[in-house]
Structures are given as structure tokens and as C-alpha cells.
């Protein structure tokens, strides 16, 4: 708890405790902890002089923020239009069945989180899947099944 608040304070200091820094602070906190811990939301509200409900409303409005801890490995299946017409739904169905997760969910051991993203701008390599920042291009259901196995092995 103490540590969390220290890290949050450092991030707030970096951006300055101004209302216009809110989104930037929250992005960094979300990235640092892989989610927005409850304590951090309260702390940000205090420092920026705004109601907790305001910070919470921003946290639930934007897609990137998570209020629950996310997995060490995050699998992003791109569902942009180019990926969609080249077969992204089949990839998503494959991961869903293999991992037993719906988009936004995390495995119980906090190993893997499945998420979708509206477009990563790598449309030429569609369909793409991004695993912990690394882009896998021109995916097929078979390649997806193999990738899931590999991820499971690594994060076990």
C-alpha cells in the first residue's frame, strides 16, 4: 500500500497536479501497475483536488483502463476493419475457446489477459495479434492455436 502510493506520487509529480494532467497520470499509473489500483484513484483525486467520482468516471469511460489486475501476458486481438475482413473473428473465437476467456478477462492465476483493440494501424499485415507489445502478422486459426500454446507454456 505504502509502495503503491509512493509510485503514484512520483507519477503525479512528473506531470504536475493539474486537472489537465489527469489522463496522462492515469495512463502512466495504469501502465505501471498493469491496472488502476483503488488506492491510486483516491490518491489522484486528492492530489488533483477533484472528487473520486470524477476520476472513476474517466477510468470507466476510456477503454485502456482496467480496475482489476491484469495478466502478466496481455494478448490483444486486433479487430480493425482490415483484420475483420481478413478473418480476425476466427482468431478471436480460437483464443476464446483455447483460453476459456472472453475479451477483457484474465486467467485466475493472473498469467494471461485477453483483450481486443479497435485497430493497431498495422492493417497491411492483417490480421494481427499483439502479445505484450510484439506484433504477430498475417495470422491464421492454425497459427493462432500454436501461438496460444506457446504463450501458455511461457506463462505457466
Amino acid at each position, binding site marked *: 500500500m505504502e509502495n503503491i502510493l509512493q509510485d503514484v506520487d512520483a507519477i503525479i509529480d512528473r506531470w504536475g497536479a493539474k486537472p489537465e494532467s489527469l489522463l496522462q497520470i492515469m495512463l502512466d499509473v495504469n501502465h505501471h501497475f498493469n491496472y488502476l489500483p483503488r488506492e491510486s484513484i483516491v490518491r489522484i483525486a486528492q492530489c488533483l483536488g477533484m472528487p473520486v467520482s470524477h476520476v472513476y468516471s474517466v477510468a470507466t469511460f476510456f477503454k485502456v483502463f482496467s480496475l482489476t489486475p491484469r495478466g502478466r501476458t496481455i494478448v490483444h486481438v486486433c479487430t480493425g476493419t482490415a483484420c475483420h475482413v481478413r478473418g480476425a473473428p476466427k482468431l478471436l473465437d480460437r483464443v476464446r475457446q483455447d483460453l476459456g476467456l472472453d475479451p477483457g478477462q484474465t486467467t485466475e492465476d493472473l498469467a494471461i489477459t485477453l483483450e481486443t*483493440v479497435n485497430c493497431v494501424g498495422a*492493417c497491411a499485415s492483417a490480421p494481427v495479434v499483439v502479445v505484450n507489445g510484439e506484433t504477430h502478422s498475417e495470422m491464421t486459426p492454425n497459427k493462432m492455436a500454436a501461438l496460444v500454446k506457446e504463450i501458455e507454456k511461457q506463462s505457466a
Partner: protein
Amino acid sequence: MERLKSIQDLDALRQQIIERRRHIRKRIRVCNGTGCHSQGAERLVDAFNRVLEERGVARDFLVVPTGCNGFCAAGPIVVIEPEEIFYQRVKADQVEAIVERSVLADEVIEELLYVDPTTGEKIVHEYEIPFFAKQERMVFKDTGSNFVRDIGDYISRGGYSALAKVLSGMSPEEVIEEVKMAGLRGRGGGGFPAGVKWESCRRAHGDIKYVMCNADEGDPGAYMDRSLLEGNPHQVLEGMIIGAYAIGAREGYIYVRFEYPMAVKNALWAIEQAKQYGLLGDNILGTSFSLDMHVNRGAGAFICGESTALMASLEGKVGEPRGKHIHTVEKGLWNRPSNLNNVETWANVPLIINNGGAWYASIGTERSKGTKIFSLVGKINNTGLVEVAMGTPLKRIIYDIGGGIPGGRRFKAVQTGGPSGGCVPDRMIDLPVDFEKLKEAGSMMGSGGMIVMDEETCMVDVARYFLNFLVEESCGKCIPCRVGVKRMHELVVGMCEGRAQPGDIEKLEELCYTIRETALCGLGKSAPNPVLSTLKYFRDEYEAHVHEKRCPAKICKPLIRYVIDTDKCTGCGLCRRRCPENAIIGAKKECHCIDEEVCVRCGICIETCKFKAIYIE
């Protein structure tokens, strides 16, 4: 680096840079755009540097990690200047050979050349490849050869000369006049004349004004803004500085999607370098004009591409739009006059200043001037970024530049304008592409995504896709969008799943018109477009889904089944072993069959079968 104190300083620096590079014999351009990067282009840069170092010739040759080349389908791309030898799909283990034969010697490596699919001929030079030869690259011209992390490269190519021209003798009004004369229209979607916007902002009351760049490129399937900002950030920055001078702003913001980390990094880096060189900050180039610039990251909300929502989010609020009875040029960020343009619009500005508004206005059609960058993606051979003059026929883009549809399949439609746009069907292939013509066809320009669809794309599924997107991205402020689009989504999902009732199509149409009339912001008002345009051109597909419970493109899972062709199946058993659901049964060397109850239609078997014995019914 000492700050440049005058325009002469800038000219002198340019000469110095050119002089310093005179000994370089060849430039090796390695594309580091999004597409090539995802296929390992970074490793190529390291490999080239290492090999040149090992041979002790690192001083004579320059390895240039560039912005996006645009021909993403051929990535990773390496181009050797001055001859412009174009190598495609280069792997790290081929670097040694390239250095040996094409850098140190002047040979051409045949295996790495691009092969023209229509003639079967190998093409040596970049400029001869039809994909490039048939484009008119102006704004995107330098991105593919720009040394991204080196401001010197931009300056050596004449960068910041437009800014120098402005600061050395043009009044803000003259700058605005030039942009108005050019007829530049916003490239973000609406197509509002940029000069008119600037003028309103200049005239608006208030001491503090803001200049802003919209890099919240949310339209799925569009990535030209990402490529410009990542690959040539100074061109965008220069445009913004000129804009700030014209409207009288002293502070600027670049709002970038967090999904584009490299764009954030490169924009920040460009600002830092421009500050060091005295091109940003106090007393730019020794004049009394000062400008500060910030980068803000978005947080994954499509609506934040809308100007009022973007500004709300910058202020630290929920990104909800407001009614636009008072425009943002009068009351925008913090209720102060704010001028927001998108990345590509800003990137056009230096060109207009350098070459004049009249020159710019000579390109394009009567009401749409200049060029437009399109991201040509989906079911097309030459995926990539394409820049053509406004008014270029669709056919030229899809066939001459795009190289047609893969696998000899039939072209069906092209989707433009993202979730606010629509589909242009095959019978309108001769349509000249500009703001007006796309609108007449029931679509819109949007930010320039062109998603090509072939006969294996289901148009009802496409409508469902966009509605799903819009349901997720609706901010929820007004009822027509929040509730109405959801109802539309339910109806279309029903069609895709075979539950639709007669009369559903009419209900869907009625909803479309109501939402278009009553929603609050542009996103809501245009939300019915994907449905209306597909209904207009592909009503028969909707009818097949509703009345016959059939998906003609064989995409909608509940309406199709996978079948094994008894004549072609050899009983090899590969599909049986691969099937994750164990839905395929059959003894070895005997014809297999699929248990329809268990099959989830995942497509693994079709991909696996070597005999093409599995098909969809």
C-alpha cells in the same frame, strides 16, 4: 547544437549538413514503418550497421531507418540509393549478401526484386514499380526516405524553409489567404476548409489561443496519420508552427492515440529537437514569435477524435462531445479559441507555403484540392499507403496501384470513411474519388481508410461489425446513439444468426433515419451510414439472410456448415487430428465427415487440408 537565431542561420545549417554528407557513397534505406517493423525491420538496421562496421566501411555508407515506405505488402523493404534498387521481403540473414553485392559492388540481387504479378517481370528500381509509378506523392513523398530520428535529414531536404518564408515576410493574414487560395480541406473526415477555420480562429476574441493536432486516428483500417507522424514528424510540426503563427497561438497540443506508442515517442523527440534548434520555444528563428508544444496521449476512445470530445479529454474530463452551436475556434480548450486540424492536414501546409496556394489549387477537382493519402487494405494485392490526386478514379487505385484482388476473386466493394462511412459497390468502380463524389455515393472520405472487400465478404456481417464497434464506442450522452444503435445492432445480429423476422429490414431502415436526424454529434448522426449504404447496394444479401436464412458470402457462422467433399478426401486424417473440437470423424484412408453439432466453424480444417476437400455450404 546552438539555437538558430535567424533565417540565414537555417540556410547555413542546411549547407553544412549537405556538405557533411557529401562523402557518403550510398544510402541504404530500411523501412521502419509499422508494417515492416512488425516483420522485424529493426533487426535489419542493426545487421546492416554491424556488417558495415565489420568491413570498416561504415563511414562511406549510411544506413537510414526511414518512416513508412507505403508499400507495406512488400515489407520489410530495403532501398539502395542513389540507384533506388528496391528489395522486398528482406530477412536479416540476407544483409551480408546485400552489402557484398549491392552496396560494395553494383550488382542487383535477382531473388530479392519485386515481381510484377501481371507481366511476371522483375523490376529493379523503386520508381518503376507500378505501385509507386502511378501515385502522385507530395505529402507522403519523403516519409519513406526520411531518417526519422535526424532533424538534419529533414532540414537538408528543405525542411523548415516554409516556416522561414513565413517568418521572413508574410503576415498572418497572408498565410491564411494562401491556405484559403489553396482550397485545403480538413483531412480528418469533415472536409472543412482549413483556411476558413484558421481565419475564424484568428478573428475570435481572446488573448490565449491554441493550435492542435488530431492524431487520435480512430477509424479502423486507416493508418496514414500514424505513418506521417511516426515517419516524418517535423513536416507535421512545421505545419503546426505555421498555423500557430497564422492564428496567433502560443501553445499547441498534439493528441495521439496511446495505441501508437512509436508516434508518441517520435512526436516528443521531434519537439525536443525543434526546441534545441530554436524552431520551437521562445523567439523562433530570432523573431518575436514564440510557441510551446505538448504531446498528450488519448486512452482508447474513438469519440475523442471528435473535436469537442478531444478537448474535453485534454481538460481531464470524460471525453464526451457537446453540441457545436458555438464552434471550437471560438470556445474550445478551456473555453478559449482553439484550432484543431488532423495530422495529414498539417503535413500539407509546408507544401502550400513553399509552392503557393495557386499551385496547390491546380491539383485535384473543382472543390477538392490537392492529394489524399489512402490506406489501401483488406482483400487487395498491394496493401499499403497510396497518395493520389483528388478525383482519381477508384479503378486506378484498386487495379493499377493496388494490383487487384488476390486469388483472382471478384471485387465486391470498398469501404471508406470508417464507422461513419459506407461502401462503394463494384458497379461504381469508375467513381472519381473526392469529398463530394464519395458523399453522393452514400459514403464519405473520412480519414482515408479504404478497405477492399471481395466476394467472400458478407455485407451484412460488415454492417454488424461497424454497429458492434459503434455500440462499444458510443459515449452514451444522447439517447439516439446510445439506445438506437444498440437496437440496430440487435436487429442485424439477428439477421446474421438466422433469427430475423420479415419486416426487420424496414424496421432497421426506420431506425437509421431517426438516428440520423436526432443524434447529438457527428459520430451519432453518421452511425447509420454503414447500414444505409450496404442496404442501398446490397439489399439482396440482407433479404437472403432474412427470408432464406442464407449467407451468400458464406461468412455468418450460424447460417453455414462445413462439408467434406467425398470425391476429394483421401482420408489422410490431418484435419481430424488438428480439429480442436474433435468434430471430424473417419477411419484412416477412408472418407471423413464433420459432426455438425460439434463443429464450431473455426476454419482450421480448411486451412489444414492439402486436397481442398473441405468446403462451406
